[in-house]
């Protein structure tokens, strides 16, 4: 069970205009703007639910994920995940969750993928039997096979992403946060990853929160959608709620963004 109540988070951003003169001016007098990345966010997600968290660039999706995974501390508001406050009780909390940041890498660059996995086994204190069962299952589902023995630096983006997802699931997390997991994947890998996330939810009852710009991901995976824009929750409903007529999903969402002016 995930609850977020009136969460606010702001960032201080140094801004200046282009040019050398402006750069010199900023040396002495720096102008900061306060950006409200999250402004009074409230929602609840039940166990075993799959939720799509969508919104335009800079809407606050990743900030929400980072608060939920215990990396960021909000300015105000309450956040509970299974009764724990993620940023206060970080170490206990992160044992139960798996996170994939699509644009970052958690695997060690210089060594074979399997070495990173073995390290994760020790970090999460996964028992040998559980590790081997999970590894076999993940290898089969994500088609890792030969990839495991290659150094990470020599994998393609899609291959690496499949390994990243496997890495986040070795310790049987109850909750999975996926921050744009299908960035840069080819059609086959995308389908494989979607299929896999779906199975994970079905078999292990994993709660999945997915942020993405790929509406096909949302269509394939989630029933519930939370729309965020300019740090506020604008809509919390199902795909059918927003779908009008025969328009395809991308057009529907673009129109939604336009009506909310975000």
């Amino acid at each position, binding site marked *: 069970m995930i609850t977020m109540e009136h969460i606010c988070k702001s960032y201080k951003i140094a801004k200046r205009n282009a040019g050398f003169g402006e750069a010199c001016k900023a040396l002495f007098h720096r102008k900061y703007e306060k950006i409200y990345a999250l402004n009074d966010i409230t929602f609840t997600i039940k166990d075993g639910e799959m939720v799509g968290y969508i919104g335009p660039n800079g809407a606050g999706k990743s900030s929400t994920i980072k608060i939920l995974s215990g990396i960021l501390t909000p300015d105000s508001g309450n956040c509970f995940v299974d009764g724990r406050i993620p940023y206060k009780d*970080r170490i206990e909390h*992160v044992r139960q969750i798996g996170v994939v940041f699509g644009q*970052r890498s958690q695997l060690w660059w210089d060594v074979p993928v399997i070495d990173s996995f073995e390290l994760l086994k020790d970090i999460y204190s996964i028992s040998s039997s559980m590790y081997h069962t999970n590894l076999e299952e993940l290898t089969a589902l994500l088609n890792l096979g030969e990839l495991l023995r290659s150094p990470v630096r020599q994998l393609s983006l899609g291959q690496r992403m499949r390994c990243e997802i496997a890495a986040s699931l070795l310790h049987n997390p109850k909750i999975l946060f996926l921050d744009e997991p299908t960035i840069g994947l080819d059609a086959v890998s995308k389908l494989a990853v979607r299929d896999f996330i779906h199975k994970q939810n079905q078999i292990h009852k994993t709660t999945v929160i997915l942020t993405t710009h790929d509406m096909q991901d949302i269509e394939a995976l989630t029933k519930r959608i939370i729309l965020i824009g300019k740090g506020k929750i604008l809509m919390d409903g199902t795909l059918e709620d927003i779908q009008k007529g025969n328009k395809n999903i991308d057009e529907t969402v673009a129109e939604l963004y336009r009506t909310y002016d975000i």
Partner: protein
Amino acid sequence: MQKYLSFFRLRFSMGLQYRTAAFAGVITQFAWGAMGILVYRAFYEVDSTAFPMTFSAVVSYIWMQQAFLAFFTVWMMENEIFDSIINGNISYELCRPIHIYDMWFFRTIANRFSAATLRCFPILVVASFLPKPFGLQPPASLIHFFLFLITLLLGLAVTVSLCILIYSLTFFTISPAGLKILFTSMVEFFSGAVIPLPFFPEKIQKMMELLPFASMQNVALRIYSADMTNRQMFSAVTLQIFWLITLVSCGKKLCSMAEKKVSIQGG
């Protein structure tokens, strides 16, 4: 504990991959050591009584310093850690059930250990076979040797804990460049990396010996060449332990402050 040991293992085995770097390192250290020794020889030939250490003690100091360079140089900081703070990859580390400070500690120690393992033996072996005044002398006694090993490890731990202080400060400054320059030059000067501390005027030396920088390479290298009295050795080891505890607790405090205030760079 097991997880930190695995960190150590993985880092150590990764470090052993870089054979060419180690070979180049050994050559550099030989050239550097030889140069240093020749400079001192020129001074000692003029008046060997004018110096606080015997020539052979200085020679052993220099060879040991070169052999264990990877333990004690502060410029060998870990760019991967700085990068992870600058570009935000640290967010993955924060998603793991580990303490950032402990992880950094073990990984830095492992890196320095693997670098030193590859580099120290050729230097030690060749330096001990060099003709008399230029060669590495055996330790003064078995006790000196054991104390040398202990203070070597303590010195390594003090050096690493200072490095982590710099890593944690980068959370606040974003760019590590200024901090690196400041700390590197301070450590080089005050730790006895440029010239051994006994060569400084006595009053200044007394003050320098109290600083944390003197608890790095200074103690082990001087104990090896029997440059310290028993009393001096005892207080030096006590100071090492004191600084280790102080630096580690400051670092942990700073690290947890940074974790609370951190804003992940790069979205």
